[in-house]
């Protein structure tokens, strides 16, 4: 009796194993993404960022520009045909998540950030010749309030505060006697409290004994607008802004 039962159990178990293996094999044959397996034909020793880092986008959306990284060898020459894999924290997705470098040694991917606002540290990895090489890329996702701030900054502030000019918009930065700080200048702006930033926006430069070239916006912007602007400034600060609130002691 016992032996027969045991035999039956083993049989069931093995049948189960066969089914599982079958599912596994089927899964291997038809990967969900439908992309063929990538085969690297070369390997490099270094990974550098070509473009697409330090972008600012809305939470959950695809960043405007793709992230492009380049695989190089010892002589800093581009390596075509090397495998590059992209990784990010939870919620980040890549299209594609792995790529083979093209003829100029570059791998390109579109990045969608997660649904939580903040800085995202992504990484690109290539197997390398002897050990894997990893490159870190930083992107920023803006929440609703921060994005309202970025839209307001574009309308009212960036014409002077952003030194970069574009074809559609010429920066006024260089025309000013006292140069305004870019909103990403964490070294300067992180030292200023929210109250100081609020008062300089509301009452202009003279409020903090600074240049009158910065006009007051207290009668133009609402309190919520100013909060949004400050939230945006904090989000894009580089080095990142650490709120000066209570430091919670760990037990």
């Amino acid at each position, binding site marked *: 009796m016992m032996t027969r039962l045991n035999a039956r159990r083993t049989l069931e178990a093995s049948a189960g194993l066969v089914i599982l293996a079958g599912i596994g094999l089927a899964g291997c044959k038809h990967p*969900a993404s*439908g992309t063929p397996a990538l085969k690297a034909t070369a390997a490099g020793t270094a990974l550098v960022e070509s473009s697409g880092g330090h972008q600012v986008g*809305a*939470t*959950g*959306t*695809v960043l*405007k520009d793709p992230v492009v990284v380049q695989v190089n060898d010892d002589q800093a020459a581009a390596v075509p045909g090397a495998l590059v894999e992209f990784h990010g924290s939870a919620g980040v997705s890549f299209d594609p998540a792995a790529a083979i470098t093209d003829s100029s040694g570059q791998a390109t991917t*579109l990045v*969608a950030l*997660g*649904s*939580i*606002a903040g800085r995202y540290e992504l990484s690109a990895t290539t197997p390398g010749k002897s050990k894997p090489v990893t490159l870190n890329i930083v992107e920023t996702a803006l*929440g*609703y*309030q921060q*994005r*309202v701030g970025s*839209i*307001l900054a574009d*309308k*009212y502030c960036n*014409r*002077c505060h952003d030194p970069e000019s574009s*074809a*559609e*918009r*010429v920066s*006024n930065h260089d*025309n*000013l006697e006292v140069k305004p700080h870019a909103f990403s200048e964490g070294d300067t702006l992180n030292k200023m409290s929210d109250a100081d930033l609020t008062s300089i926006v509301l009452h202009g430069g003279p409020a903090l004994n600074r*240049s*009158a*070239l*910065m*006009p*007051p*916006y*207290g*009668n*133009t912007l609402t309190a*919520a607008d100013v*909060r949004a602007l400050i*939230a945006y400034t904090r989000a894009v600060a580089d080095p990142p802004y650490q*709120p000066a*609130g*209570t*430091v*919670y*002691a*760990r*037990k």
Partner: protein
Amino acid sequence: MQSIRKYFSSAWQKLFGDPVRAFGIVSLILLLALAIAPAKEHFSEWHGYQRQYLRLIRDRGDAISLRRRFEPGIHQIWLPELGVVDRCTTCHVGLNEASLGDVGQQPFRKHPAIPHSLDGFGCVICHGGQGQATTVDEAHHSERAGEEPILPARYIESGCGQCHQSALPGTPQLNLGRTMLTRYGCVHCHAITRPDGTKVLATDHPPSLVHIADKTTREWVYSWLKDPQAYAATTTMPNYKLSDGDASDISAYLVSTSTPHVGDTVAANTKTAANADATAGPSLYGQSFCASCHAVQNAAGNLVGGDVGPELTRIGNKAKPEWLAAWLDNPRIYDATTPMPHYRFTPQQIATLTAYLQGKSDSDYGMGVHLDAASPQQTAHGRKLIVELGCAACHEINGVQKPENFAPELSTIGSKPLAQVVFLPGMEHSLSSYIVAKIRQPRAFGASVKMPQFALTASQTDALTTALLALTNRGKSMPDNLRVAAVPDTNYQPAGHAGKLITELACFSCHRINGRGSDMAPDLTWEGSAVQRPWLTDFLKNPNTLRPSLIRRMPRFNLSDGDNKELTDYILAVYQSPSIDADLAPAATNPPEAVEHGRQLFYSKYACQSCHIADTKNDKGYIGPTLTQVGSRLTPGWVYAWLKNPQALRPGTTEPNQNLSDEDARAMTAFLMSLKSTGGRGVKQ
């Protein structure tokens, strides 16, 4: 059988033979049964999250106040008016806790700052998902029951669009999607009614094809139909993926039924064109600011110019020279409602510009297209295809009626039940991924699908999806007091001869007046209060640049002196702001000490030179208009009122309201009015 019965009866005897033991056992069973409910609660998913939350807040500095605000048990936001029963806050415990903004561990992070209170609207109105569920799986991805899973964050702005029908400053993606619904002509085929009953109207201008043979050749129509984006990368015309034969038949029908129209073509004046200087064409194109509306691909392959009118990179391949000349002479003969202004070019200018535009052609475009004359059967087949594909929903076509309700209505597409959706194999079962797939690859849903292929980028597709997901049943059932209606353009039409001139010059294509028109150029509703007569007369004759940083500028129209006076009189008489009282305004000329006081305020106290140039030698401000001749341009009443409160005169203007005192505003007005034109630019005195 026997042995089993024996076994059971002995067991029964052992357990219940003795009444005391039986009582004990029954009590034990009862106790266990009673324990099931609390145990189930104790081991439930949400209870686990609440315990995790308590562990999380235990070590924080504000643990005591966080602990005091925490209430164990199932939490629920119940809003019968909105049909909301959301238990999401059972696990998302810290949504309203200001100090938990830095928590990385979900579901405990504070909700990001939004303009609405969470308790007033609940969660599912914006995020979707199943609010009544108390397990993660059922609330977030309840695919099993055919219910809508939670909305991906990239479409979150659709939630705002259910109540807010007008553009919001904080929802650029939704605003873009809505613009695309009207600009890409979606609503020509798909009717969309807003929750307040108003219809979404198209803002594109699909050309009438009634006189198409005057304008272009059958070969061009064929090449265009085969691949519109190959002719103009930015066109909103979609690709119908026609076979060679079908495209040939449609082109045959359109060209053969086209009726000639008097004035659509003029004999090309080749002699004057040949005499023209090679640089005359580009310089006239530049002076006329054609690039404000029309784009041209440059050598690097980038499009340069506006997107109001069609791209002109290959216009020479399309337009017949005799049609182009007639069009440049007066576009309203061919198309009475075109947004293109009637420039009043001289015959010489028309010849120059026609020759220049004809030169914008691509010798490779349409190469190898040779169409044989179509048989009556082929032409009839062309008409059948036009009816089937719904071409007449957008374009006026001879012999084909505009179809009504050609494609499914989309007024509540955002609430389409998943049970009614046919998903493609391997597709995620959610409405958002269905809409995205349908926009990206409509023909993938079956060979009989008529919807064409639109050339959209990934972000445009996301924006369109957001706008469509906002069209929900909930949006229709919202209480009226929560609805923010769309502000439609008015149908303002100025009267008389000046009104006719305003239509002919297509002022509304760039300017907004009394709630109608585009926002490319300044709103002219109060222009009559703002400017002085000599300046306006001169500006209409020869518009000079006020804002150095602008790319799109006012073109020069060859208005006759009579028309110029008519328009100037009308603007000065009619477009008057009631808030500016000319009698109370400061004087136009002032004593030198008042001017000097104003100058000091301008440069030191208010530092206006950061954005404006009042003195070309020292000032460099590159944002606001140049003020070197402002005393000859603006009225003192307007300058004073503007300094006091710019937003009151032009809502949304970027000049900050500096809350000037009356004295300061008067002094600054005195200074600005002293900045007169030297007459160098020919202002009539």
